């Protein structure tokens, strides 16, 4: 197993765990945590490919990951702001109870 494959597997595992968390936990914040984990796993993927892939001097992978981190931060801020706003309205963060968009 090449090192790259190892890193990829780890990233896949973290991604799956993050997804599991996002899909199964009741609390909205924990869903956001899961999403952060998924983003991180993707970052790991990118860096691994940058390290072991062709033309690392172009810094493509690294840049991609850095931008991803920035975006993730922004998204976390907004997301958490939204959760807080919703909490103010509904007094709960339980996702199971938030089904007003039910069709």
């Amino acid at each position, binding site marked *: 197993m090449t090192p790259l494959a190892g890193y990829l597997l780890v990233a896949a595992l973290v991604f799956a765990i993050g997804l599991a968390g*996002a*899909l*199964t936990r009741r609390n909205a914040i924990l*869903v956001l945590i899961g999403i952060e984990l998924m983003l991180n796993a993707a970052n790991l993927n990118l860096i691994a490919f940058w390290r072991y892939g062709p033309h690392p001097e172009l810094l493509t992978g690294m840049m991609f990951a850095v931008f991803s981190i920035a975006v993730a931060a922004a998204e976390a801020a907004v997301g958490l702001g939204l959760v807080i706003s919703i909490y103010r309205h509904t007094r709960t963060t339980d996702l199971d109870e938030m089904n007003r*968009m*039910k*069709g």
Partner: protein
Amino acid sequence: MQESMGFTPQLTASSIAQILWLIPAMPIAASGVIALMKQPARRAASWLAIGSLAVSLLLSLVAFGHVLTGWSHGFSVRETVDFSWLQMGTGTVDLGWVLDPLSAVMGLMVALVSLLIFVYSTGYMAHDENYTRFFCFLSLFAGAMLGVVISNSLLLLFMCWEIVGLTSYLLIGFWYQKPSAAAAAKKAFVTTRVGDIFFLLGIVWLFSETGTLLFYNHGVGALEPEAIATMLAGKAALGLSAATVIGLLIFAGAAGKSGQLPLHVWLPDAMEGPTPVSALIHAATMVAAGVYLIARVYPLMAAGGALSHDGAVAGTTTALTVVTWVGAATAVFAALIAVAQNDIKRILAYSTVSQLGYMMAGLGMGGVAVGMFHLITHAFFKALLFMGAGSAIHGCHEEQDVRRMGGLRKDMPTTFITYAAGMMALAGFIPLAGFWSKDAILESAHTWKSSQGPYFLLVFGALLTAFYMTRQVCYVFFGESRGHGHAHESPRVMTVPLVILAFFAVTLGALGTPAWPWFRSFLTDRPAPFELAGFGEPGIAALMVTSTLVVILGLSLGWWMYGNKSPRADEPDALEKAAPTVWGWLAKKLYADELYGVTVIALYAWWARVADWFDRRVWGGLVAAVTLSFRGFAYFDRFFDQQFVDGGFDKGCEEIYTGGGLLARVQTGRVQHYLRLLAVAVVILAAILIWSSRG
């Protein structure tokens, strides 16, 4: 009729002949104008009618004068004016009018009598609210009758004939609210129609044989020798020639209109109309139209027969024999029935039928002049009698039963005297007009070669005529007044025409005595010298004496039985007491109507029922079947539409709805579910991509 010896024919149309068409046209135009007037315009209507007829009278006087002068100068006047009316391929149908002695004399009589009756009607119908309509119809009648008289075309004659029949219907049923009047009008129309059908057949046959319907047309007319010869040569059934059968068919039409024996049933019922109508139409003019028609087509009727010794009267032909016997039978038949009637107008009606029979017999045996002379004299005194009867009815406050009248001699003197004059003329008392005309007929019957039967029948008829007229006069004018209320004399407008007619009834006979046979000569285009020696001709004197005796016998019998007695209405008649069964038969009009009712009418009713059944069951059944099939289709269609189309559509919509509902369940409103779906989709997509790139 052969051209007379010594008279030169005058055939070119003079100016009066050119405008002859105005004579019928003016009353018809007046009728049209009156039809457009409103009901209250009474005086205008009657003045218009009388005025137009007066103009017609003037014109016919001028025409008569013209013919008279021509005759007196030795011309045989026969002026025709023809025009083509219809174009059928290469041939044309022509119409036209003729001015000859026959049409001049008849036209003058019709115009004069009509005018007098018009004046009389203004008084008689003064209280009727449909005054205007009356004069409209009356005027139309007068115009159409004059059209019949002057017509030179058999087709034009037939058209005017039909209009005359129509106006007769309209006038008989003038008081249409009375069911009896409406029924009588219908009866008149239907009965004359039966005759008219045969008449039409005759016209068509004549046209097919000769190719023309004009009477006189410079040698090629239907009554001129060439055409007559063609018709004689034509063959019909039973070994008769076409001329005979055509003549008989035309006679059938005349029999209907003139009330000859089998078709007489409508005339007595026609008394439902107002009295002026009875006087004008059913005494003087319309019923005479049939006699006039036979006189007009006499050359055809006499075709093939040998001429008599003086060339004036043709020998007997089959057609003329039939005419004679029918006429004689009618004369006696109707006179018998008249004896037992109680309605004043009905007595006169049956008397009319009887006298028409005399006219027909006279035509058959004695020729045109004999028949026409009696027609002219009869017109005057029968119109007089009807108008007198109308005056009496008016005076007795619309009472028509003779048993409820009486003593009018004192209350209505003018009416009595004029009526008596007319009655004597009708009975044939010498020297009144009726004597001379009836005697001419009896003379021709006496000298008829085929048989003496008509002679004895007509003599018996004369006896009966005197008898029943005496009876009527005794009932109405003599004895005590049995009516209710006091009778009063009629106004001048009604009595003056009576006087004028009475004058003619008395004096007109002078035109036809054996001493001075002016009328006969006038009609047959020969000179008319006045010779008292005419009385000396063989058989004339004896005949005159015989008929006078017969008349006196009749008058005496009547006076003896009815005289000055005034039996009450509920008492049986004197004759009824003497011979009750015979009286019963005569009172029932010898069951003619009942016979028709059992045979013709019953057959017709049966046929109508058959047709009704057929129509209702068969045709109705067919229509119902078609309808049912349509309904069936409609039901099936509806079923199909409801079950399949509607059902299918509804089901489809339901499924879409349910499907939508099902699909909507995906939208739970919960974020994590959406995420899961996303994840699943990604997984599947990735799997596909990887799988495809691997291969």
